[in-house]
């Protein structure tokens, strides 16, 4: 009885889903989905040549690079992008000493309260403060940026597919829109206030090319030339750190865990072998088992 009922139910679902299959196949043949500009021209991120310094199973942060990246964020990105999950005190983790952290914090204006009047005002940052937001609210952010809200950057490298490479390629990927693209997909033409960037999901992004070249940021002595690629790599590494500040500690802890586990598992393997040796060899009776 159950089987007859089961077979009928099974056939019902099968016929229903095959009906969907027939309808969809018919639709796909009669009006195949047109190819879109995004499908044809979107590029997947590759990242900088040679990868990032912090990539690899044993790699550590390049703190000089993170500091350069912080400088790029501070002098370029922070005009529009917040970093709300990071506090100034966290800068101590990328090689600044206590005094430098205090000085860096003090170089930012953060929302505070006037100690005399109690009114809201901007005050010098202290290490416990978080990075301030560049806009008062989303409406202000939209108004200033062609109706697009600049996303918070704290987690950006984890919030996009292949995020670290994506951020690097987005920053360095601006170019002229190919003429044949506009010819084939006139509606995908880059609009006023937008910029063509094949790494962006819709190909046209509202962010103007943020990195313009040498002279934009001055790196301290002993650092590489601040080319667009160099700045992009540095700021991306910095954002990889803001997204995952525990990355290096995580890997180091991981090696300790794995070393111990491999050792313990090898021991477990041999004890298993030894225990089971008693059950092998044909003597299956109670004698072999009850002795221990």
């Amino acid at each position, binding site marked *: 009885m159950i089987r007859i009922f089961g077979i009928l139910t099974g056939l019902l679902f099968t016929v*229903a889903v095959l009906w*969907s299959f027939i309808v969809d196949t018919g639709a*796909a043949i009669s009006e195949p*989905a047109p190819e879109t500009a995004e499908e044809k021209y979107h590029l997947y991120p590759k990242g900088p040549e040679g990868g990032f310094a912090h990539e690899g199973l044993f790699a550590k942060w390049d703190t000089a690079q993170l500091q350069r990246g912080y400088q790029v964020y501070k002098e370029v990105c922070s005009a529009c992008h917040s970093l709300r999950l990071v506090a100034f005190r966290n800068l101590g983790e990328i090689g600044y000493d206590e005094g430098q952290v205090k000085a860096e914090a003090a170089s930012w204006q953060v929302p505070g309260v006037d100690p005399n009047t109690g009114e809201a005002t901007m005050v010098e940052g202290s290490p416990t403060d978080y990075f301030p937001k560049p806009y008062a609210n989303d409406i202000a952010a939209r108004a200033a940026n062609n109706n697009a809200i600049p996303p918070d950057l704290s987690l950006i490298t984890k*919030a996009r597919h292949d995020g670290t490479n994506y951020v690097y390629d987005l920053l360095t990927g601006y170019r002229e829109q190919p003429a044949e693209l506009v010819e084939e997909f006139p509606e995908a033409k880059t609009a006023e206030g937008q910029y063509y960037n094949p790494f962006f999901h819709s190909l046209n992004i509202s962010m103007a090319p943020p990195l313009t070249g040498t002279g934009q940021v001055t790196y301290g002595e002993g650092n590489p030339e601040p080319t667009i690629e160099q700045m992009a790599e540095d700021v991306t590494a910095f954002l990889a750190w803001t997204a995952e500040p525990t990355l290096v500690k995580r890997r180091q802890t991981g090696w300790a865990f794995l070393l111990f586990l491999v050792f313990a598992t090898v021991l*477990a393997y041999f004890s*298993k072998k030894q225990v089971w040796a008693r*059950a092998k060899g044909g003597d299956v009776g*109670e004698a072999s088992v009850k002795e221990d």
Partner: protein
Amino acid sequence: MSFPWAQQYEPKYGLTKFLDEKLPLPRLVYNAVGAGYPVPRNLSYFWNFGVLAGFCLVLQIVTGVVLAMHYAPNTLVAFDSTEHIMRNVNWGWLMRYAHANGASAFFVVVYIHIFRGLYYSSYKAPREMIWLLGVVIFLLMMATAFMGYVLPWGQMSYWGAKVITGLFGAIPLVGEGIQNWLLGGFAPDNAALNRFFSLHFLLPFVIAGVVILHIWALHIPGSSNPTGVEVKKESDTLPFHPYYTAKDGFGLGVFLIIYFAFVFFMPNALGHPDNYIPANPLSTPANIVPEWYFWPFYAILRAFTADFFFVPAKLMGVLAMFASILVWFFLPWLDKSPVRSGHYRPLFRKFFWFGLIPAIVVLGYCGGAHLSTTTILLSQIFTAYYFLHFLVILPIISLIERPEPMPYSITEAVLGHDPDSKLGPKPTTASPAKA
């Protein structure tokens, strides 16, 4: 119940004697997972996964309780409290990654456990109740995992909650009411997040309760084994301790190595990047997908695209998705073959390896991929196969199949001969044990 030759617990010390008189917990453990539980001696490593699943449950409860100490179930701060755990709580990142990847590990282990049960027909008499309780555990796990994924209140949390509760909206007449009742509002918001947190905390303990029943039911007939031949005598079994504790210990080590490789070296590989974007009801993600362990069922849901007579496509998809799991409840009565193990069932084996497994892999791929004509058509074909397999093929092959020769006993399967076998040694071509 146990086999008559099971070793008996004999307390030796004052304390254990005292306990055994007042509350015989040591005796319970001894008979459940100690020397007092005789287990077929031919279990393969596929029989490790029950213990591993139990381990995962404990792992999830321990990490989850710690996370709950720092997490705040309020839409205003849920996302930031999760990041607070990641950034400011000592070893919080480890707890969260262990918990998130622990969910995936739990499902990997449970899927292997389920498919072991399917291949060796562990659901057949006398083990129907173990199987039924197992399906209940799986359903509870799905609910728990779904609600847990909502808690960080990222984009996928929010939109996942919206899509899944929206499924109930497909039910005619009362659907919308049920959906609003489940959410405590017209869309996922604070009311939903709060109750999901409450239930996400509660359900693992319900699972633990059903796991106890699952193990209790297991100890009545005893464990199944790769030959599917029931235990006949003492030489067919070994005491759980030390044999299977040792074997499970090794299996646990291998499991932990793989699990911690994910936790420490690719903790976000199985997650979706959109969940690192705070929930935004005004911005729909390009591709709303659940976590990987739901992909096959999600593909079945999305496979129904055309109305079927008077049944709307969406309702049909919802019914099919639930039916795809509920059908497991009926397996003990759908598959009437007297032979349990797939080793001795040539036809069943072919449909299992070349039908069911590929179907579920393809459905899994389609459920996670961007919607396209190809993935839709593929999901439709393999959804059809999925239902045919369980509801039509399985009952039919159990009638027409000619099983291969089986060993007389587990002893014979392991040793190649059994003095009690009336037929003498058999050609052991089909013997699966101890290759």
